[in-house]
């Protein structure tokens, strides 16, 4: 088992005929992901990925014709929020948005659509999710390199891209496999938070330990820590927080942190996580050892 993506995933790729979309879709298929459709407005009727996948003009068409239940968006930033809303309206329940640089007010509106239609959004500006399976295959939606994974039972959730790869690689090198690796994205407005991800992992019987990889800024790690303390005490849990030595973030002024009631500093996030029973690593390479110390044993 896994969360969000797995054998049941029937993926529609919005922006499949673009350079990024086409490249990563091919990688997903090679790993074992079922891509059932692509969407590029004005190019419906074409076929992509060596003629193997039909392209539709709208997400509604793709859903009706192929039963797509998950979307992955590679649409350029100016149209990406609209692509999210379109997927939600078409009835897609799990929407991954890889695109970075989406105007933040577009996201406020897109998120309202996602909520209105009862969909779940992951991202934007996220690497997606992978649920590794047997024989070097599995289901991946997004851009996480397939080569870093090992199937297993540790759930990984992270705000970052390459830092996630680093952490997952160190786990794989140590023989510790993953149930699902999920990158939730680092933008100010995202669809799925750390806490949401932990709630999903909590319901997944195949996940027996948690790795949380956070960053300075905001209060999402503290919120997740509080939830985990009350609801995840049965699972070994470890964390890493990037930015102990970093200067204060530039993107948002203090007002954002004040409103969240948190400082956004690494030291406070680490304290909150430790208080919630997480073992916190000083380097991503320490995560495998800490998992074992937290009581996790690979099967």
């Amino acid at each position, binding site marked *: 088992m896994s969360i969000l993506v797995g054998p049941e995933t029937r993926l529609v790729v919005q922006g499949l005929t673009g350079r990024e979309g086409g490249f990563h879709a091919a990688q997903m298929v090679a790993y074992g992901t079922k891509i059932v459709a692509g969407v590029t407005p004005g190019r419906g009727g074409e076929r992509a990925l060596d003629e193997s996948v039909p392209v539709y003009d709208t997400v509604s068409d793709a859903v009706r014709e192929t039963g797509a239940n998950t979307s992955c968006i590679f649409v350029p930033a100016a149209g990406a929020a609209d692509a999210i809303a379109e997927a939600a309206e078409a009835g897609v329940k799990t929407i991954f948005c890889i695109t970075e640089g989406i105007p933040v007010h577009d996201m406020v509106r897109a998120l309202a659509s996602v909520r209105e239609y009862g969909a779940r959004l992951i991202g934007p500006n996220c690497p997606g999710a992978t649920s590794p399976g047997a024989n070097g295959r599995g289901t991946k939606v997004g851009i996480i390199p397939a080569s870093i994974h090992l199937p297993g039972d540790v759930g990984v959730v992270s705000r970052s891209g390459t830092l996630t790869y680093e952490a997952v690689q160190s786990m794989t090198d140590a023989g510790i496999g993953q149930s699902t690796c999920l990158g939730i994205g680092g933008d100010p407005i995202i669809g799925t938070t750390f806490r949401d991800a932990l709630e999903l992992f909590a319901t997944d019987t195949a996940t027996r330990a948690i790795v949380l990889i956070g960053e300075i800024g905001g209060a999402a790690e503290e919120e997740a820590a509080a939830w985990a303390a009350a609801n995840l005490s049965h699972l070994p849990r470890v964390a890493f927080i990037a930015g102990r*030595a970093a200067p204060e973030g530039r993107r948002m002024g203090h007002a954002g942190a004040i409103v969240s009631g948190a400082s956004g500093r690494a030291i406070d996030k680490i304290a909150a996580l430790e208080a919630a029973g997480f073992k916190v690593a000083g380097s991503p390479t320490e995560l495998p050892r800490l998992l074992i110390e937290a009581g996790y044993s690979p099967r």
Partner: protein
Amino acid sequence: MKIHEAEARELLSRFGLPVPDGATATTPAAARAAAERLFAAGATQVVIKAQVLVGGRGKAGGVKLAASAAEAESVAAAILALTIKDLPVRRVLIAPAAEITREIYLSALIDRASRGILVMASAAGGMEIEEVAAKDPTAIVREMAHPQAGLLPFQARRLGLHIGLRGELLRQFAAIATGLVRIAREADADLVEVNPLAVVPAPEIPGGERLVCLDAKVTLDDSALDRHPDFSAWRDEESEDPIDREAREMGISYIRLDGSIGCMVNGAGLAMTTLDLVTRAGGTPANFLDIGGGARADKVAAAMRIILADAGVKAILVNIFGGITRGDEVAKGLIEARAQQERVVPMVVRIVGTNATEAATLLKAAAFETATSLDEAAEKAVALAAGGAK
């Protein structure tokens, strides 16, 4: 992108918000001319304010009053000679000094936690909102704007009522609060803050008082600047360090720090982690630098120039986890950059992930010092910066 008070005022007035008269000047003579016009229009005193993109101008002597055009000229000359928190003052704003009865705080901003537009108001205007939040969090009232419709009038009134406004002032306040949210949405601003929003005497209107936006702070969303071409004129390129500008134009995120180890990394989280590990290994990072996803050789070469422009850099650590970014592209960029660089600085390179094997072959042929693990790379860089093992 932060914009100056003068431009923030212009944005507010474009949206019909009450902003007092005023003008900017880059020379004392121009300041005098502006002051003359304001005195002729009925001002009894003018305020001269340094236009710099940092807080604490007042304490630094960057905000002063003048009672005559001649005094305005000399005050402007003094302020234009200041450097506030490393930023030279190149321009001043001259405005009529207001007779303030009461100061209010009001802002609209993107809030991560609630994932929407948050509007905050406080009766304790004129102070930094952080200070208010620390002293008395209950003094700040909040409303979430509707994601599609903006701040609704009843929400705006509720904010005004909570900070003790009644009658005509309440009506004005509600219009200003909904206006701030309209600006945030239509101009794609992360933050629109008016502090103080001042109550001033206005004998000409019923109630005898009105609200004016005396100071404004606006941060525009960098990701949305493309659809507001007119805002590009508001970028303060003069105050922008040339190195920062090159980084911005190349799509590289760069923040200069005080240490000796230059860092080149792909991805913000991994870049921060690299700084953390350098620090943990006993070194001091010279910068945060994220070359972004899918960087090609030319971007790597630009990143190298940016790092080396900092004379404090004694060693360089390159840490790349290839995903979208291809390791061999980065290696080629490094080899190209080293051939061009004027200053020789020891370097340790770690490239893993996509095309790491090809990268390793290229780097070996070019005799680069390499590392396998992140921790090892950080330790080597620290040793190199200290003049140790090569």
